[in-house]
């Protein structure tokens, strides 16, 4: 097929998400962050809520999330995004407010803010990308680093006896009355990407209905921090991360999913 033929309107199956900016992503090739960014912006575009959406960027790899997503943004101090989002939503109850956070940000330094925003049932969405490591600072151990997993601060593997075991903050916050929708997703293959996008849509629709807090964990890779090729990191993630952080809904309509 000729090039011109391929690029004809009816043959196009994919185009750049209009609400992603022209700024090249700062993420490593193979990283899941770009996909999660794109999915959030696709949903915002499809719902027609760009003018009413405010994002909160964390500290970590996605600190520059505001460079890539074309909505008003506030950057937050390390771990404090849920507190920042709480106040913005309280003052702008009609806006859609989401935080975008990594595992060190959300599950270590920001644990208090995460738990209390969830417990108050703030009507916001928390998008939590869990790659089991501190990426930005160079691959240190995170609260979500698996038992035995090597990192620059657990070079001989995480020893649960001295370093504490990894913990599942998503299951933890699902126990709180304030959370309405809690789910765990992935974005490494087309199937999971479609499911993840549905979850994002659901979270923002629920916010419109004032249902309270939606929390989506995206189990993702960090091929640089894990020191693997992108493909190997995805295989490793499926074999090691998914058994500990199982995919699927944890809480729907304010009720824990039995399973």
């Amino acid at each position, binding site marked *: 097929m000729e090039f011109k033929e391929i690029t004809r309107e009816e043959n196009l199956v994919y185009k750049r998400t209009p609400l992603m900016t022209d700024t090249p992503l700062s993420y490593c090739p193979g990283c899941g962050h770009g996909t999660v960014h794109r999915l959030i912006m696709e949903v915002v575009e499809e719902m027609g809520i*760009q*003018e*009413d*959406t*405010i994002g*909160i*960027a964390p500290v970590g790899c996605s*600190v*520059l999330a*505001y460079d890539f997503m*074309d*909505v*008003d*943004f*506030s*950057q*937050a*101090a390390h771990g*404090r995004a849920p*507190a*920042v*989002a*709480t*106040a*913005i939503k*309280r*003052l*702008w109850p009609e*806006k859609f407010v989401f935080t975008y956070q990594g595992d060190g940000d959300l599950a270590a330094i920001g644990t*208090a*803010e995460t738990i*209390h925003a969830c417990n108050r049932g703030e009507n916001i969405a928390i998008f939590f990308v869990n790659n089991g490591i501190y990426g930005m600072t160079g691959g240190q151990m995170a609260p979500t680093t698996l038992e035995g997993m090597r990192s620059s601060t657990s070079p001989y593997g995480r020893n649960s006896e001295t370093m504490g075991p990894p913990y599942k903050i998503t299951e933890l916050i699902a126990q709180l009355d304030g959370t309405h929708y809690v789910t765990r997703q992935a974005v490494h293959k087309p199937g999971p990407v479609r499911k993840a996008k549905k979850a994002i849509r659901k979270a923002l629709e629920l916010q419109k209905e004032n249902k309270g807090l939606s929390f989506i964990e995206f189990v993702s890779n960090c091929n640089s921090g894990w020191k693997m090729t992108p493909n190997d990191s995805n295989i490793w993630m499926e074999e090691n991360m998914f058994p500990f952080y199982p995919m699927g809904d944890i809480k729907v309509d304010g009720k824990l999913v039995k399973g």
Partner: protein
Amino acid sequence: MKGNEAIAEAAIRAGVDGYFGYPITPQSEVMEYLMLQKPEERTGMVVLQAESEVASINMVYGAAGTGKKVMTSSSSPGISLMQEGISYIAGAELPCLIVNVVRGGPGLGTIQPSQADYFQSTKGGGHGDYRLIVLAPASVQEMADFVDLGFELAFKYRNPTMILSDGLIGQMMEKVELPPQKERVTEFDQSWAITGKTKDRERNIITSLNLDPDKQYEHNLKLQEKYKSMEQDVMFEKIDCDDADFLLVAYGSSARICQKVVEMARSRGKKVGLLRPQTLYPFPSNELARMARKVKGMMAVELSAGQMVEDVRLAVNGKVPVSHYGMMGGKIHSPDDVLKALEDKYIGGY
């Protein structure tokens, strides 16, 4: 009305949109009063008890980014905990009001009044080169008045304002004339505030991050220029200064004590005056330099081991001797204590 209650009532009347706080003695009456008043019904003001001072200052940061009027209050240890957030607010150039009803330190210290947070408030407190606008009320009336003034200056410079009070001013009861009720503002500055990106403008981003060192340098130059320009809003009160040949310099509760000292000294025939800074940043350095040409000596009176005295000495620049007197918080100097110290200096010379 108590000083702390005056702050709370004045906040409702100033049309404040949001208050985020955490209980700590001796300022808990601020949030207690607000909650009792049902400000969500009176003006639509949001009042939220946060899980910590860390959360409350970050709520203030988030809310200030919307362009609305927001504030918090705390006392010394809580303010220490907020310093990272305050640095972010200064770096991101957001307007807000922070009230510090100071207690004695360091550490958990005491719940009694102190003025030992002067350095922390006027020299930065958190990391980086930044300044707060610092207002020092000396009466319950000023507790009320400085709320509106604090927001006016905060929005003028897009900078956090701190009301630096202490346990004495916060807890004492005085008559107060309350300001009239202001409407809450509904139009926000689209040039910077996060209000939702409309088609006719670029997205607004609230951040204090500049990875590019050149940009950070430029940002810092701009901030420094802003801090310097604040000098035009310096405020102070002069009591019996015209014929004075000895000057007391004191703010807040110490200024109240010194007012009495001036009376007592003058009844003994000593020409003593009092300069009371109402803004601690900007500091009335120029006025002190002028006064240094007229008086024989100065004494800074503070409830600390001597903090503001350093700024007085800088302003006077060696022209006249400057001494310090003060108990370090917890215990409060009486007018008699100050008068004795004054007479030692005044008569004993330097």
